[in-house]
């Protein structure tokens, strides 16, 4: 109804706004990067805690074997640089592929953010329940 149309309009409008910011700041047309690009986050923990026993942290593990993961020590005692990318020619498994749309790098980026957050805080921060999954007020 009214609410869902408004929401859709808002999202589309805001994304249009953000896309033009992107043009303004970088001259690029969209936020998507070429396939095979590395995405990186810095995790404020030593490498042994980022890949304990050499095992990838969740949710990166779920994206195997479509991705490559690398780590290296961050400068200045800032922990570990954790990098991942989709293997050239590989496709993301199941739901991830569905969510990726035309920007698979985004899925990798989100997975990296969540892996970092899990390692640093022990949890992935959840948003408040959205209006759409709340249903009408009781």
């Amino acid at each position, binding site marked *: 109804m009214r*609410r869902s149309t*408004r*929401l859709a*309009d*808002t*999202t589309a*409008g*805001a994304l*249009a*706004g*953000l896309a*033009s*910011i*992107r043009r*303004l*700041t970088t001259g690029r047309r969209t*936020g998507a990067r070429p396939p095979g690009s590395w995405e990186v986050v*810095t995790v*404020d923990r030593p490498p042994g805690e980022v890949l304990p026993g050499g095992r990838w942290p969740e949710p990166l593990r779920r994206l195997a074997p479509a991705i490559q993961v690398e780590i290296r020590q961050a400068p200045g005692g*800032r*922990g570990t640089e954790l990098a991942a990318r989709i293997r050239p020619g590989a496709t993301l498994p199941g739901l991830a592929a569905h969510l990726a749309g035309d920007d698979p790098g*985004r899925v990798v980026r*989100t997975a990296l*953010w969540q892996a*970092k*957050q899990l390692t*640093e*805080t*022990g*949890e*992935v*921060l*959840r*948003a*408040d*329940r*959205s*209006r759409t999954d*709340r249903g009408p*007020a*009781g």
Partner: protein
Amino acid sequence: MRALCWTDTGQIAVRQVPDPELRNGHDAIVRVRQSATCGGDLPLLAGRAPYLADGDVLGHEFLGEVVTVGPQVRRHRVGDRVVVSSTVACGSCWQCRSGAPWCCDNGNPAPEASELAYGHPVPGAFGRPTATGGFAGGHAEYVRVPYADVGAYRIPDQVSDDRALFAADAAPAGWLAAELGGVRTGSVVAVWGAGAVGQLTARAAGMLGADRVIVIDPRDDRLRMARRHTDAETIDPRHADVPAELRERTGGRGPDVCVEAVGPAWDGRPRSLADRFTDAAERPPAVRESVHVCRKGGTVVVLGEYAGYVDTFPLGAVGAKGLRVRGVRQHGARHVPTLLERMARDELRTEHLATHRLPLEEGARGYALFRDRRDGCVRAVFSPDLPPAG
């Protein structure tokens, strides 16, 4: 529960919404006793923030009582009286551990939007749209507080609710502005804006040893309040040429530190969504003026909450005069405990800033008074416990 929701451009209303629930192990639920209006909310009210949606609960400054804690919460128990930092920080990332919780890497469950807009994800804040985390705000009966051990602070018994409320945002913002400005013994500090944040910046500058603090605002009531509650002198731009006056009062040097605490107040013009983030750039006169008058090699601190782009910024003066420009929100976790101690010792008094106390039901009226600065309103404070009038 009842909550003050944004419903449309310029429109807010109290509605029944579902109670918040624990979503993470580090969450607590707080029953709100008081919440305050803030200049940072006005662009939201005016519909100038992208992603804001019908039904979003507003309010980022609040205090109350802990009623539920998640299994990972260690520092709080049910019944604690707490003030909650307006920003959501994890306490465990490099930024938090280096004393910069406003730059927290983990306080935003939807980092994509701010990464696209600002180049990096910014942390969450209460009562803000998705780009800033999308956490429901404190103009409500209950609020979910993520990372409660980091974001919520026990209020010392000697400190009243009326005073502690300002430790949520305005006092730490003012303190950080003075700190980042490098205020020290002998400094001369000019502050544009005599709202709560401007006054608390002036007070912080005085406490850090400033020799002269000069507050600029076009409202008599606010200037009077600033003179009474801080050691500041004042300038009314309606009756004075501010740059000339500041030059004269600083021996021709210009202030060492210039703080812009005006912000993008509501100009009453609703804008299209694309405008809100792009074309219609702000042209903040106080930012321009502060860059122009700041002494060579001085520091300009921008406290106003600008969401997107600013136009006609005097970049030439920044280079030619070797200025430092600092951006600020507030590093709650770094400053709230010491500010509460100062409040307990009576060194920092803030309750006079709450000029209007209203039941939550009168939220729309309170925001209108605050927005239009009518009836001497510096801050409206809402309480869900006050009975609705009439």
